[in-house]
């Protein structure tokens, strides 16, 4: 599914956070949104998920305007927020059921899809445990499983690996890449960690509210003359 962002701008009061950003996400591909903290990544996610209202510019998902047809578009999007959005006092299955209901799925359908996702994510035997009892890695996996419950074609992940140890981080990252391949999902993976990006990924570099670069990691290095992506990133963001 194609995502078209045109001339997107956003300000909190008088402080501009995003300045006239335009880019396009290709269907079925893994895209990394790279930027230091405060670059505007979360604001961009807020706009894409309708938690913030559009001030300037346009967002089209599969050709449909988010502002004009929010219900149709929101049903196509799965979101994993930066901070956990699970209810720790409810069980794994109950958390999934709640999300499924909010997406308009019947309880039977929710249970069927939920169990299938849990099995795929290796969480089925924990289905009746409270979320509080899960470790950080399992929680993030559960959140991804939940985001996929209504079969979206676009998956947005806002620093999904925050707070995980390096091994879980790498596992989660490659898991999402598998999903992207298997289900032809369009993925936007926001991060400030360069090691989560592979040379063949499409990389969007956001810095101080502006889109500084857009291309595959390799192409960016070639074009900007960096030794590797980390070097290129430092050049672009001026090391500040």
């Amino acid at each position, binding site marked *: 599914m194609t995502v078209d962002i045109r001339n997107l701008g956003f300000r909190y009061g008088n402080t501009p956070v995003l300045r006239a950003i335009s880019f396009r996400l290709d269907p079925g591909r893994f895209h990394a949104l790279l930027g230091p903290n405060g670059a505007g990544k979360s604001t961009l996610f*807020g706009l894409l998920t*309708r938690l913030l*209202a559009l001030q300037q510019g346009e967002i089209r998902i599969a050709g449909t305007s988010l502002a004009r047809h*929010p219900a149709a578009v929101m049903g196509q999007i799965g*979101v994993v927020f930066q901070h956990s959005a699970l*209810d720790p006092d409810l069980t794994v299955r*109950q958390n999934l059921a*709640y999300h499924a*209901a909010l997406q*308009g799925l019947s309880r039977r359908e929710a249970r069927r899809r939920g169990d299938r996702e849990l099995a795929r994510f290796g969480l089925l035997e924990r289905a009746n445990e409270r979320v509080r009892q899960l470790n950080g890695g399992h929680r993030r996996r559960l959140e991804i499983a939940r985001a996929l419950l209504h079969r979206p074609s676009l998956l947005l992940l806002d620093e999904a690996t925050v707070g995980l140890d390096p091994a879980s981080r790498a596992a989660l990252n490659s898991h999402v890449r598998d999903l992207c391949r298997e289900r032809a999902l369009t993925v936007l993976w926001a991060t400030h960690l360069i090691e989560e990006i592979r040379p063949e990924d499409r990389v969007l570099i956001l810095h101080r509210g502006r889109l500084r670069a857009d291309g595959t990691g390799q192409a960016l290095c070639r074009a900007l003359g960096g030794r590797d992506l980390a070097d290129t990133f430092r050049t672009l963001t001026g090391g500040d």
Partner: protein
Amino acid sequence: MDASRYWHGFIGIQVREWRRFWQQRTRLASALVRPLLWLVVFAAGFRAVLGIAILPPYQTYITYETYIVPGLCGMIILFNSMQGALSMVYDRELGSMRVLLVSPLPRPFLLFTKLLAMAGVAVVQAGVFLALARLVGVQPPPAGYLAAVPALVLTSLMLGALGLLIATWIRQLENFAGVMNFVIFPMFFLSSALYPLWRMREASPWLYWACQLNPFTHAVEAIRFSLYLEWNPLAWGITGTVTLLLAALASTGFRPQRTRILSGRR
């Protein structure tokens, strides 16, 4: 979007609220201790001080306990709504609120459903309290319990919407102590919950009018009259109108351009 999606969403939100309630059973206990203290201790101490004349909807002289029970039902709902609404916006529920808001269902529908779910829980708490009050001799007609349910639901919707408004608009009241001091206590004491308003009028006309302007007064009167199977159109009218007004304001507060969910903690 077809109706079944709305239905599944509606049921899902109700189920979640009850599950949370069941998981936090201690909350029920603490929600009941407060009004029971008022009923058993405070009312016993005050019954001698305050003589209550015959006033509608009561047909005979009543004990002070009998007088304050509807107000204490209101108190249960007041605490429940403020706690619920605040935790909806702040707290750990911050996350689950996001899950709610990214649903493709329309936001006013989601918020109303959520308020209704909170009202259901509050009505059950008030019901348990009324049953306990019966043991200490506050015995309205049995049909009154049923008649009071719509009044309790309406009160809960009104206060829930108010709580949401407060939580979205006034960031300084982020902690519950602030809400206690500036919302719950004034609303509760400046109302007919603990004393009939004619007594207030004797004390000070200003306070009397403050009580009359307080929608909580009318909510308590709606509960009181319903509990004794009397119809009070003024109380219902005011409570209903204020509920609609607050609900409309609260739902505009949750339109995307106003959502502080993302920026609220900056």
